[in-house]
């Protein structure tokens, strides 16, 4: 018993007191900022392996961005990644960063479905489904509940059964083979229910976007309530996104 207490004492306080205000340090890559500097825009567009950058004006779509940082290394005067990890939004368009913009990414509160705040603000239980995820986003979702991030303090939790869930959180590019299980799982969740996409693979297909082994039709038929970018998405990005959606 004494030895167990010693372990607890030696490990000290491990939980992060305020998950809204943590500062991450470089080289962590969060929300990018695009300066108005003049560069060879075609070369900039071409350097992105995922086609996340478009020109005239220069824009980065964080729904397609793997945060690999290649653009910032090739064009340091044009692109800078800040350490702002609050990247989630309920509107797909809000994930697109325009040239010269430095404001944070926000949720469009007006378009959040009314029942979300009413029903889930104190407690949100999610069923996670990996549909071709590479196990890094899955690991980060697991980390959200660990002693460091402890999202359970907000009533946020992942549950085993879709019957106990308030919504579906999808990772991975949505493989053909998972199309049916995904639909069955969604149908088993009682209403009202939400759908969240976590990670670049889920939002746009990421590096797998052109693969014939995918079936992303589920996304065409359902309303998405929250997009959480990243590759994988950081626990702070996930938790802040969920809090912004429900509170």
């Amino acid at each position: 018993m004494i030895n167990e207490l010693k372990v607890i004492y030696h490990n000290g306080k491990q939980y992060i007191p305020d998950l809204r205000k943590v500062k991450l340090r470089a080289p962590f890559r969060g929300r990018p900022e695009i300066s108005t500097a003049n560069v060879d825009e075609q070369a900039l567009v071409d350097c992105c392996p995922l086609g996340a950058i478009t020109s005239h004006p220069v824009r980065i779509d964080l729904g397609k961005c793997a945060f690999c940082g290649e653009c910032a290394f090739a064009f340091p005067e044009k692109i800078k990644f800040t350490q702002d990890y609050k990247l989630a939004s309920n509107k797909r368009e809000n994930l697109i960063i325009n040239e010269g913009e430095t404001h944070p990414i926000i949720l469009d509160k007006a378009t959040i479905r009314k029942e979300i705040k009413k029903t889930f603000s104190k407690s949100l239980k999610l069923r996670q489904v990996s549909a071709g995820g590479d196990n890094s986003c899955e690991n980060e979702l697991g980390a959200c509940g660990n002693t460091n991030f402890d999202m359970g303090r907000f009533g946020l939790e992942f549950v085993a059964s879709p019957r106990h869930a308030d919504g579906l959180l999808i990772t991975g590019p949505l493989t053909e083979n998972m199309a049916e299980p995904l639909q069955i799982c969604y149908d088993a969740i009682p209403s009202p229910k939400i759908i969240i996409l976590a990670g670049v693979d889920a939002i746009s297909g990421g590096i797998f976007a052109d693969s014939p082994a995918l079936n992303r039709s589920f996304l065409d038929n359902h309303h998405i309530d929250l997009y959480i970018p990243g590759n994988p998405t950081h626990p702070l990005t996930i938790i802040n996104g969920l809090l912004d959606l429900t509170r």
Partner: protein
Amino acid sequence: MIELENISQIRNNQAIDLKQITSLSYLDFFDVTVQLLEQKDNHCLTYFAYPTDKGLQFMMAIAQDKNYTILLFSHFLATTENQVLKSLSETIFALSIFEREIYENYGVYFTNHPWLKPVRFAHNRANKKLQISDYPFYQIKSEELHEVGVGPIHAGIIEPGHFRFICNGENVLHLEIQLGWQHRGVEQLFLDQKTNLQRNLLAENIAGDTVIGHTTTFVQTMEVLADKHVTERIQIERALALELERIAIHTGDIGALCTDAAYHLGANVFTILRTAIINFTQRWCGNRFGKSLVRLGGTYFPFTPALKKELLDMLASFEKQFNEMAELTYHLPSIQNRFDFVGTITPKQARLMGTVGLAARMSTIERDIRVTHPDFAYQKFPYQTITAPNGDVYARFLLKKKEIAKSIAWIRNVIEKEPFETAETEKPTYALTLQPNKLAISINEAWRGEVCHCAITDAKGELKHYKIKDPSLHNWKALELSLRNVEISDFPINNKSYNLSYCGHDL
């Protein structure tokens, strides 16, 4: 009869002209394979087929653990010939999964195969009529028995796969694991993606828990094909990252095993300790899993003197806390009682299945690429492999702890002897010219076991075939066998003790 001395051979991280690879008739191919794989110190790295204009080219790569070599030999099956071959799996069971893959992808039928059925229901499979829901499970007909089906979606935040148990009361008679749900068409994408940066990113996403393992193997394969030499420092930095990945995942696994044995103190503390390691990786390259660290030809993120100090400080505090917690955990009677003699694999079974990495070493088999086929980093700083005797859950649990200690010692030794004095480094180069008509192989000992990438170029120097083997491909069979004659409630601890990859298998 073919003399084994005449079989073409290369070493890890080497390329060979396609013309120089020993080409055999199937009869000889069969005999040579059996002769080689019946020897204890040889095992199959990869066995695959790829289409050419006139038929299928079969390629076998066998690692020889005693003389650092990889034997390569091939067999050609023309389209005009009968697409039926005698199965090697009947004699060498470890090849079963490879024959199933060739059967699924190209429709070649292997006679006398123990059970020829699809592996992953790949999008480019030969028989599209067969759907993933048609998988033919093993069945035992008896009124005394019942079946338990779990998945593809599981009760936790993990990847999908289907487990079918046949139980007699609480006891499992048989477990069959069906995968394929995660299939993303990765190998084909390596050919379809035309820039090397895209391929580099693709390699990072093969298995997100083995980012360094797969990406390092990818860059080495491509650098060999392009005859591009990277600095010694870059090679050593990649190995440092590989060992950090091992420490992080092993620590997380130990925590997960504590969770399943209902030892919450251990579960919490080991999880916190894993955070310390992956947060260091984030300090190094901006990503907790090491994505964007390993790049073709170089890196944007050198291991700077500042990082060196930070890593040593972090490891010192990690080790202190880890040892204190491990001292309690590993001597706890309830843990020992839970893990001892559960899910045992004998050395004979392990060899038969061709297990690799931790799943081989837990059963006394000294199979470790860092020792048998070391790349530059492990030649300069040798690693001594360790094994465990019993092949049970406790052996896997114990080996993870011991490997963490070994990896920390290895990292400290490297840091002590390597200067890492500057923050300057070679930058990545994506414009590589691949040599035409070559085959290159790279293998690395990632935390689960050997990752093997094999690339083949055509006459124009374009990638013609890209073959990936994750260690899980061999090791899933070991999990199935571990469950025989244990209680179904022992499944979680067995599963976590292996922690195998679904996406690495499904590709």
